[in-house]
């Protein structure tokens, strides 16, 4: 058997057109496993790696996708709540949604959204060096991850509802609310063990300037949620 060096999925920028990790021999994890830099790890080890990166890298950002942004079926509200709980544990975190996949024209507002047609605009503009994708359909997540690895130094983390993503630096498959909460727990564990988060002095979720503008310019206020109860 000819052994070639295993491909490592590390933060970029890797160049104009790096290969897809799946075509370089990186395989998807089973339930109970995760992927870190292209190698299979246990779920717990993967969570701890994710937690450490989120607490120590610059401008951590959560990118929720359509499957968690829109409460279209049972269980979504619970998952959304678990994502917000996760956000609460990451000081200095931002939440920038990926509400759809259409080719936004003429250009996106990188402080308002991330879009799979040109994710690098959001990453570069906000100087994001670690991010979490959750609730994005796998096809769009995969192309987004490849572009981010090609053109930025961002550390990508995916909490995937399905089989996981070889193209992110850390990935967990078959994630429901439990796994999101497990990541939150891993973050709390590292803090208890003495890790001082990079943004320890600015706890809580940060709004981007655009989000602040929208919030203060809103003609109506119903608190959280789309419609009044």
């Amino acid at each position, binding site marked *: 058997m000819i052994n070639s060096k295993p491909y490592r999925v590390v933060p970029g920028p890797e160049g104009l057109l790096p290969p897809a990790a799946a075509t370089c021999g990186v395989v998807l994890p089973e339930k109970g496993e995760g992927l870190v830099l292209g190698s299979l790890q246990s779920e717990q080890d993967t969570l701890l790696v994710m937690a450490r990166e989120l607490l120590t890298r610059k401008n951590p950002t959560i990118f929720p996708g359509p499957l968690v942004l829109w*409460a*279209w079926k049972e269980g979504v509200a619970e998952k959304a709540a678990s994502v917000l709980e996760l956000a609460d544990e990451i000081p200095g975190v931002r939440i920038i949604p990926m509400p759809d996949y259409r080719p936004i024209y*003429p250009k996106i507002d990188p402080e308002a959204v991330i879009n799979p047609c040109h994710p690098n605009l959001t990453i570069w503009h906000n100087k994001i060096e670690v991010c979490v994708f959750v609730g994005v359909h796998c096809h769009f997540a995969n192309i987004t991850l490849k572009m981010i690895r090609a053109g930025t130094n961002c550390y990508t983390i995916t909490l995937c509802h399905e089989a996981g993503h070889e193209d992110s630096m850390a990935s967990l498959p078959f994630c429901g609310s439990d796994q999101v909460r497990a990541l939150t727990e891993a973050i709390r564990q590292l803090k208890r063990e003495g890790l001082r988060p990079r943004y320890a002095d600015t706890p809580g979720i940060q709004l981007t300037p655009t989000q602040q503008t929208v919030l203060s310019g809103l003609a109506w206020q119903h608190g959280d*949620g789309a419609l009044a109860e």
Partner: protein
Amino acid sequence: MPKRVGSSHDKEKVHKERRFDMALRTLNVAPGFMRFMPKEYQDLVEKGPFGRQIKVTDLGTFKEVLEEHPMCEGCAMAFFIRLSLAALPNPEHTVMVGTAGCGRLAISQAAIPFVYGNYCDTNGVATGLKRGLQIRFPDQHKDVVVMAGDGGLSDIGFSQVMHSWFRKEKFTTIMLDNEVYGNTGGQESGMTRKGEVVKMAPLGKQFEKIDMLGLAQTSGVAYIARLTPTNPSRVFSTIRKAVLIAREVGPTYVQAYTSCNIEYSIAPEKVLDDARQVEKERYGFVEIMSDEAKAYLERIDAESKA
């Protein structure tokens, strides 16, 4: 305080419908995420047309599904598309099918699922979409609307258009007729008038504009209409009728003169004048519907008044 968006906006009704209509659940922002949503989406959720019956007089008072578009200054097609999208009876249960051409530049930017395949395939794809939706949701009206140009429908897509009509597939076909292949720089199409000198027709087009209306009649299309965008109310009612009749009666076809002011050198401020002129000379309003279609419209009219 929130601005009232017009008498047809009943927030409580919308709220209830959004709770119970599966499709509208895709417009319920998950609790806690609203403040992170971009403004356009907040507007769409709060002030969009979903679950409501929009009238042409409501334009300008609600968040339209069409977000933005890169069409040329003065493009009559952009105007027509905007009207058509606002006229859809149930945008929350509508799928649009487009193809190569100028139209899809705008249609793809609407908050309505949009499908774009290979050039020629709109009516085959629409056939599959309609049948698939029928299998999965037999109790829910799912409107499939093809909106494409003259090239895509009367030339390369001709076979699929005609055969979808022969098979009586239940969806709407709307031709954005600018009488040229506009998106590729202005070449002759089947719907170009005889004698017009355009690219690939240096000596003028050698044969007549294709009579798609006649072909639709021969094929037994249930509702056929021809119009220009000179009368927004008429556009609204025509599109609405075409979509409704396709739900239960049979295929419907709307052919709209939507000029390409670039390729036909019409000054932007003259576009509507041109449309009125063309309407007077050769593109007057035509509406042909089968007895069954007429009876169907009368029935649903009566039901809505009851």
